[in-house]
């Protein structure tokens, strides 16, 4: 049985690169990504699972990284917004101006990427139920919906 206590060196595979980090078992994945790996594209907002700005992909599925311990991520593939540079989803958000301040954008892009990987041609109900996991204070919802449609066509 694996037991971790105090600080431990663990290996995390992030954006297809294996990185070593020193963590306590109670360290949250979102903070380790930002503070130890410098991947500050993942944002932290509510820290309570409500806003979705901390969303990353774990084995291709969206997970709110404020609700995941870093030690739970060992052995899984993590994708952050930095891993989606110049992809159809990112380009669709730019083309459709699907942001204003941009704080929520990484979270939305992660969900959108996973949605289209798992449902290449999603119906409106599926799009809504996946994207309802994220909040946009600037209310760019209409443009975000258009970006999802655009991303689908660009793939």
């Amino acid at each position: 049985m694996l037991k971790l206590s105090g600080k431990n060196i663990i290996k995390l595979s992030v954006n297809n690169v294996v990185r070593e980090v020193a963590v306590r078992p109670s360290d949250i994945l979102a903070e380790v990504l930002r503070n130890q790996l410098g991947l500050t594209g993942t944002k932290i907002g509510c820290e309570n699972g409500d806003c979705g700005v901390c969303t990353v992909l774990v084995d291709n599925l969206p997970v709110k990284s404020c609700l995941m311990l870093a030690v739970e991520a060992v052995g899984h593939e993590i994708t952050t917004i930095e891993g989606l540079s110049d992809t159809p989803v990112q380009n669709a958000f730019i083309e459709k101006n699907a942001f204003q301040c941009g704080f929520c954008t990484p979270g939305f892009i992660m969900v959108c990427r996973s949605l289209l990987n798992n449902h290449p041609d999603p119906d409106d109900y599926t799009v809504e139920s996946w994207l309802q996991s994220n909040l946009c204070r600037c209310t760019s919802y209409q443009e975000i919906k258009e970006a999802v449609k655009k991303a689908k066509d660009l793939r």
Partner: protein
Amino acid sequence: MIPFDFEYYLPDTLKEASEIFVTLQKEGRSPLYYGGGTEIISMARVMNVTPGAVIDIKKIPECLEFGINDNHITIGAAVTLAKITASGIFPLLGLAAGRIADHTVQEKITLGGNLAGTIIYHESLLPLLISDSSVCLQSAEGLKEAPVPEVFSGGGLRPGELIVKISLEKKFAQCPYFHIKKSKIEKIGYPLVTVCVLLYDNVMRTAVSGLCHFPLRLADVPLDPDTDEAVLAENLVRNISAPIRNDASGSADYRTFILIKTVESIIRELKQIKKDKINA
């Protein structure tokens, strides 16, 4: 940030999990079984729980069981709500699970965590309360099986008891069903009332969350085409003896009104389904 340290254990077997729980408990370290961790992390952040150790059950094979065998459906405690919904294995449970928190959080919340957690709604319990489901529990004394209502509508889990898996007969997953969740404003949110109904053997089985401080199963009702649905719904709801919640999210009168109207509409639809079947 979680402002304190705890130890992390990842047992490979049920026996290891229950033994380490007992050891840590004896040492005064307030261990917690760890499923999806969503409730433990959000509560630990504000020091509402302060475990000295967490025991992650996501590597225990029995807790990951998921499938149909010999007309029995088995769902391990560490299976996520999103996986249950996507599989279609028990459509009513899939609907209930698909309205808990939001889709991304459903990728992390486990069935065991929703059943055992301290948040009062336990919406995934409703389909299990009305489908003769049983629960397999591991403790220091070993494995035992019990009817779901006996554990979750009774005294709850005993200290150190681990939910291993849920099982039910496949026939209950094939009955006509309804799931209606009414929240105060948004689609995502805690329920004012959530109602789950199964029609089995022409009897309507109903379970409700949000109304009282715990989910409950209402009286069974034979579906008689001649009964008035408004009278039936009113009687069913007025017979609830537990105190109805009365707070800022919804007064007791409002919750009761919503429940009566919801049950009424379900009875009406069930009667219609029956009529259509006869006419077909």
